C-alpha cells in the first residue's frame, strides 16, 4: 500500500464499526465527563460565597448548610469522575479487544502463502501492540479532543460577546496554530512510521532470538545477534529522538504563540481601558478567558500528536485487515456450505476422496516460474499415491494444491468430480488427515495435542489412536503419560516422538483423505515397521498422498509419481517403473544398502 505523508482520515474509517459497538460506553463517558466538569466549575462559586458571607460579614451562621451543599457538589463531581474514568478504561480495553479479535480472525482466513512471507514477530506486533495504541488514543485522545474543543468554542463565543475586536485578534490563533500543527504533524508522521516499523523489527528480533536460541547457541553467534539487535535499538533511538524533538518544538511553540496572543490582547485591551472605550470589568473577564484558552489549545495539538502516532498503527492494522485471501470461497459456496467459522455441516456432501488435476498450471505467488505446466492426474477414491523425487523437486506443491492451500494459477482441481472451488475450504480440510513434515505440536498435554484432530474424542479414543501408530510408547516414556505437557511447539519431545504424536493426531480424525509428508522420516526402523502395517491398514479404502524417501513406504502404492525439477517424469506402479529402468529404478538403486565398501 502506498504510504502517505499526510494525516489521512480515511484510514481511520476502520475504527468506526468498533465505535458503533461501544457507542453506549462512549456516550456514558461523555455524559459524565460533562457532569464532572460542571460540578468542578462551580467550586469557585463556593469560595466566593464563603468570602462574602462569612468572612466579610464576620458570622458563621449557616456554615453547616454551606458545607453540606459544597460537599454534595464534590461528591456528585467525584462520582461522575469515577464513572467516566471507569468507562473510558473499559472502552479502551473493549476497543482493543475487538480489534485484536478481528485481526486474529482475519489471520485465520489468510492463505498460507501470506504466512510464508511474513514474520511472526511482525504480525504479533500488529495484533498486540498496534491495536493497543489505537484503542488508547481513541478512548482518551478523542474524548480529550472533544472536551477541549467544546471548551474552546464556548470560550470564543463568550469572548465575542464581551469584546468582538479582541476576540477577532485571538481568533487569528487558530490558523496559526493549525498551520504549525499541520506542519509538524506531517513530519512526525513520517518519523513515526519508521518508529513503528522498527518496533516490529524489534519484536521480530525477539521472536527469532528466542525461537532460534538453540541454533544460535550451537553456532555461538549470540554476541553477533546482540550486535544486530543493538543496530535496531540504535535506529529506534535515533528515530524516537527525532520524533520527540519535533514534539518538543511543537508543543512549547503552540503554548508560546498562545501566550503572545494573550500579551497582544492585554496590550491592546489595556490601552482601550486606559484611554477609555472599554469597561475595566469587561477586560478583566476577557483576559480570564484568554489565559484559560491557551492550555486547551495545546491539549488539542497534543491530541493531534497522539492521533498521528496512532495513524501509523491504524495503517498497519488496516493493511493487515485488508490483506486479500488468495484462497477464498465464493459467496454462493458460503451460502451453501458456510464459512470456516460458521460451517453448515448439514449441507456437506460426504467426501469420497477422488482427486483430479485437470490442465493445472501453477506458480508460487512470489515467483514467475511455473512449477506445474498443464498437469493432469486422476486419483480415484481409495488410491494410494506415492510421490518420490529428489529433495526440493516440488513434491509438496502437489500436496499443497490437492489440499487447496494454494489455488492453481490455471486449470482445475476436482474433488469427487467437482471443482474444489465449488465447495468450502473447511469442507475439504475437515476431511484431511495431514501429517506434516515439520511436526508442529501446540503447548498443552499429549492428549490435547492428539485430540486436536477430533475435538470431541474421548480419552479412550485418544489412547486407541495413539496405540494404532505406536505413539503410546511416547506416553509411557513421559512422567504423567497422556497428561504430560509437551512444551511449546512440542519441544520437550524428540522429533521422532513428535512425528508419532502428529500421526496419532491425524489418525484420530478418521479422514477419507490422508496426506503423509515425510511423516516417518525421524522414526526408527523398528517402530516404523510396527506402524507400517498399521498405516497400510489405515490407508485401506482411503485416498492418500505419501511423500517419502523410504522404499518401504512407497513400494505398495497404487501409483508412484516421480518428480524432478517440478515435473512429473514418470508415473506408474512399482513394478512398471522398475521394468522401465528409468529415474525411479535409479532412485531405488540408491536406496538399497550397499554392503560392499
Amino acid at each position, binding site marked *: 500500500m502506498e504510504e502517505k505523508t499526510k494525516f489521512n482520515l480515511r484510514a481511520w474509517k476502520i475504527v468506526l464499526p468498533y465505535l458503533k459497538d461501544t457507542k453506549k460506553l462512549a456516550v456514558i463517558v461523555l455524559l459524565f465527563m460533562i457532569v464532572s466538569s460542571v460540578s468542578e466549575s462551580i467550586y469557585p462559586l463556593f469560595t466566593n460565597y464563603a468570602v462574602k458571607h462569612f468572612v466579610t460579614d464576620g458570622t458563621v451562621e449557616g456554615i453547616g448548610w*454551606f458545607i453540606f451543599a459544597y460537599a454534595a457538589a464534590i461528591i456528585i463531581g467525584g462520582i461522575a469522575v469515577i464513572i467516566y474514568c*471507569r468507562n473510558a478504561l473499559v472502552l479502551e480495553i473493549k476497543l482493543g479487544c475487538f480489534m485484536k479479535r478481528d485481526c*486474529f480472525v482475519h*489471520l*485465520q482466513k489468510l492463505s498460507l502463502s501470506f504466512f510464508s512471507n511474513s514474520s511472526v514477530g511482525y504480525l504479533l506486533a500488529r495484533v498486540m501492540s498496534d491495536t493497543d495504541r489505537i484503542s488508547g488514543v481513541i478512548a482518551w485522545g478523542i474524548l480529550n479532543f472533544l472536551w477541549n474543543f467544546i471548551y474552546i468554542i464556548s470560550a470564543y463565543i463568550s469572548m465575542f460577546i464581551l469584546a468582538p475586536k479582541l476576540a477577532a485578534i485571538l481568533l487569528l490563533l487558530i490558523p496559526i496554530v493549525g498551520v504549525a500543527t499541520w506542519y509538524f504533524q506531517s513530519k512526525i508522521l513520517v518519523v513515526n512510521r519508521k518508529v513503528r516499523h522498527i518496533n516490529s523489527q524489534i519484536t521480530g528480533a525477539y521472536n527469532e532470538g528466542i525461537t532460534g536460541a538453540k541454533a544460535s547457541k550451537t553456532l555461538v553467534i549470540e554476541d553477533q545477534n*546482540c550486535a544486530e539487535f543493538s543496530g535496531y535499538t540504535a535506529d529506534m533511538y535515533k528515530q524516537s529522538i527525532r520524533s520527540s524533538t519535533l514534539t518538543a518544538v511543537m508543543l*512549547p511553540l503552540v*503554548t508560546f504563540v498562545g501566550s503572545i496572543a494573550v*500579551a497582544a490582547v492585554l496590550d491592546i485591551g489595556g490601552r482601550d481601558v486606559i484611554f477609555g472605550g472599554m469597561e475595566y470589568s469587561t477586560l478583566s473577564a476577557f483576559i480570564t478567558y484568554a489565559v484559560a484558552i491557551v492550555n486547551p489549545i495545546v491539549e488539542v495539538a497534543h491530541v493531534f500528536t497522539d492521533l498521528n502516532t496512532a495513524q501509523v498503527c491504524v495503517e498497519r492494522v488496516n493493511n493487515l485487515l485488508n490483506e486479500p485471501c488468495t484462497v477464498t470461497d465464493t459467496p454462493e459456496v458460503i451460502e451453501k456450505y458456510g464459512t470456516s467459522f460458521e460451517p453448515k455441516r448439514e449441507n456437506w456432501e460426504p467426501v469420497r476422496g477422488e482427486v483430479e488435476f485437470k490442465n493445472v498450471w501453477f506458480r508460487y505467488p512470489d515467483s514467475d516460474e511455473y512449477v506445474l505446466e498443464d498437469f493432469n492426474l486422476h486419483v480415484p477414491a481409495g488410491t494410494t499415491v506415492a510421490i518420490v523425487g529428489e529433495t526440493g523437486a516440488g513434491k509438496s506443491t502437489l500436496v499443497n494444491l490437492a489440499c487447496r492451500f494454494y489455488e492453481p494459477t490455471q486449470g482445475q482441481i476436482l474433488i469427487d468430480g467437482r471443482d474444489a472451488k465449488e465447495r468450502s475450504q473447511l469442507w475439504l480440510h475437515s476431511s484431511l488427515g495431514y501429517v506434516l513434515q515439520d511436526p508442529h505440536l501446540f503447548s498443552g498435554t499429549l492428549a490435547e495435542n492428539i485430540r486436536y484432530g477430533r475435538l470431541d474424542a474421548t480419552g479412550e479414543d485418544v489412547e486407541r489412536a495413539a496405540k494404532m501408530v505406536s505413539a503410546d510408547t511416547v506416553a509411557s516414556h513421559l512422567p504423567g503419560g497422556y497428561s504430560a505437557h509437551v512444551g511449546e511447539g512440542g519441544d520437550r519431545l524428540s522429533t521422532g516422538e513428535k512425528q508419532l504424536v502428529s500421526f496419532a493426531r491425524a489418525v484420530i480424525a478418521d479422514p477419507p483423505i490422508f496426506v503423509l509428508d515425510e511423516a516417518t522420516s525421524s522414526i526408527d526402523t523398528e517402530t516404523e515397521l510396527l506402524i507400517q502395517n498399521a498405516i497400510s491398514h489405515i490407508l485401506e479404502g482411503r485416498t492418500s498422498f505419501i511423500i517419502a524417501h523410504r522404499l518401504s513406504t512407497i513400494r505398495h502404492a497404487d501409483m508412484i509419481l516421480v518428480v524432478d525439477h517440478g515435473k512429473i517424469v514418470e508415473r506408474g506402479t512399482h513394478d512398471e517403473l522398475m521394468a522401465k529402468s528409468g529415474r525411479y529404478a535409479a532412485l531405488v538403486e540408491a536406496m538399497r544398502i550397499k554392503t560392499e565398501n
Partner: protein
Amino acid sequence: MKKKNTLTKLLLRTMRGSYGLFVIALITSAVSILFSFLLPQVVGYTVDSVIGTHEKVIPDILQNLVDSLGGRDGLLKNFIICAIAVGICAVISGVFNFISRKTLAHGTERFTRKLRDSLFAHVQHLPFSWHTETQTGDIIQRCTSDVETTKRFVSQQLIEVVRTVVLLIIAFIMMFRLDVKMAVVCGIFVPIILGYTMVFFRQIAKKFLHCDEAEGDLMVKVQENLTGVRVVRAFGRERYEIDTFDEKCDIYSNSWTSLGYTMGIYWGLGDIVSALQLLAVVSAGAFFAAKGEITLGDMLIFISYTQTIAGPVRQLGRVVSDMSKTGVALQRINEIFDAEPEKEPEGAKTPPMDRDITFKNVTFSYDGRNVLKDLSFTIPAGSTFGILGGTGSGKSTLTYVLNRLYDLPENGGSIEIGGVDIKEISLPHLRKNVGLVLQEPFLFSKTIMENIDIASKTGDLEKVRESAKIAAVDKDIISFTEGYDTIVGERGVTLSGGQKQRVAMARTLMLKSPIMVFDDSMSNLDMETDAQIRSALREGTGNSTVIIISHRISTLMQADKILVLEDGKCAELGSHHELMEKDSIYRRIYEIQAGLDRKEEN
C-alpha cells in the same frame, strides 16, 4: 521490601549514564513550570493593579522591580512593558520546556535502549533449558509491552513524582510558617491520601499483574497460532482457534476491566479528597476569619496554596497507579534478569579439540524423565562414529550434553575431550569446535548466503558455495531466481525440509570444526542425495571427528564404530562387521531395511 530494592536497582542500573540528562530535564522543567505559573500572575497583576486599582500583594522582589519601573504610573505610561513581561515569561517558559522535553527524550530513549539491549543480550545468554521451559510469547510480551510500560513511566511520570513531592514540601513549609492551625487542617489530608494510596497501590499492582499475565497468555496464543498455522489449516481448526482465543481474550478483557474499575475509584477518590481539602480550608478559614483569628488575606493565601497543590494531588492518583503498574512490569522484566545466564567456567580452558571424546558414566534426566543412563564410551579422534537408536532413546540429548546445551548434573558422570572435562572448557570454544547440525534446523530471516556464512563470517561467496556443494544444496540454491540472495522466510518456510537441513549442514561445514555432529540431518533427504553428501563429507571434513545419528543403516555402516542406544543405555558398540557377526539389534534393523529392499526385487 527486598524485592523493591532489586527493582530500584534495576531501574537505577539502567539509568546509569543518563543521570545528568534526567537532572537537567528536571531542573529545566521546574524553571519552565515556574514561568508558566508566573505568566498568569503577571497578566493578573496587570489587569488588577495596573489597569484596575486593586492593590495586589506580590513578593518583594517583584514589587522592587515594579517600583524601579516607576510603579503603577510608570507602567501605565509605558504600558507595553507589561505585555513584554508576559512575552518574556512565555519565551523563558517555552525555551526551558523545549530543553526539558528534549533532554528527557534523550534520557528516556537511552534508558529504553539500554533496557532492550540488555534484555536481549541476557535472553541470548540464558541456558537452553530456560528456553525450553518458558513460553516465547510470554517472554516477548515482557520484552515489549512491559518495557513500554516502564518507558512510559520514566518518560512521563518520573519527573511528575519528583515535582509533586517538591511542590508539596514547599507548600507545607510556607503554610506552617503562616499559620499552624490552618496548616494542620490542610495537612490532615496528607496521611489520608497516603493511606488510601497505599491500599490502592497494592490493589492496582495485584490486578495489573493479572492483566499482564493475561496479556502474556494472549500473546502466547497468538504466537503459537501463527507458528503452527499449517496445522491449524490442515485440520480446519479455525473455529476452535478463535474460540480459544476468545477465551483468553475474555480473561484479558475482564482483568483489565476489573483494573479499570479500581483505577476509576482511585482517580475519583483523588478528585474528591483534593476537593474536600479545599472545602475544609475554605470552611475553617471562614470560621477562623469570622472569629477574627486570621485575616482575610491569610485565608485567601491558604486557598490559593491549596489550589496550587490540588492539581498535583489529583495527578498523584495517575502517577501512583502508573508507578504500581511499572513495579509489576519491572518485576516481570526482572524475573528474566534473575535467571542465571550460562557462565564461563573459572579458569576456562581452550584445549585443542581434535582429541578423543570420552563419555564416562553419563547419566542425565530431564523433566523427570531418565534420558541417558550410565553411558560410557570413547570416540577416537578423527574417526567416524555412528549412533543408532529408537525413537526417544536419547540420541539428540547425547549431542546436547556434548556441547553443553544441557549441563550434566553433579553426579551425572562426565564427558572429556582430550582428557579435559568439558565443564572446564570455555563455552564458546567448546561450541565453536563442536559443529552441531540440529535435527530440526532453524534458519534466520536473512539471505541464504548470510545464513550459511552466519557463524564463519567469511563474506566469501566461493567458500560458501563450496560448503553448499558438499551439502548438495548448491544446485537447489542457484535454481532460485535470487540465488544465494534469496531471503529465507521466518523459520525458512519457503524451503523444503530437506533443503533446510542441507543449508544448515552447509552452515556448520563452514566452521571446519574438528568435531562435527549430524543429528539425523539426512532424514528428509532422498537416499541418492544422502549418499552423495556422505562421500563429499568424507573428503570435505578431513581429519574431523564425525558423529552421525541416523536411522538408516546405509548412512551408518561406513562409520568406524556404531553405538546402538536403547532406552538411554548403551546396548551395542562396534563396527558394522563386528555388529553384523553377533545376534544384535543392529543386525535386526539391517535385516529389516535390507529385507524390505530385497522383497521388492522379487
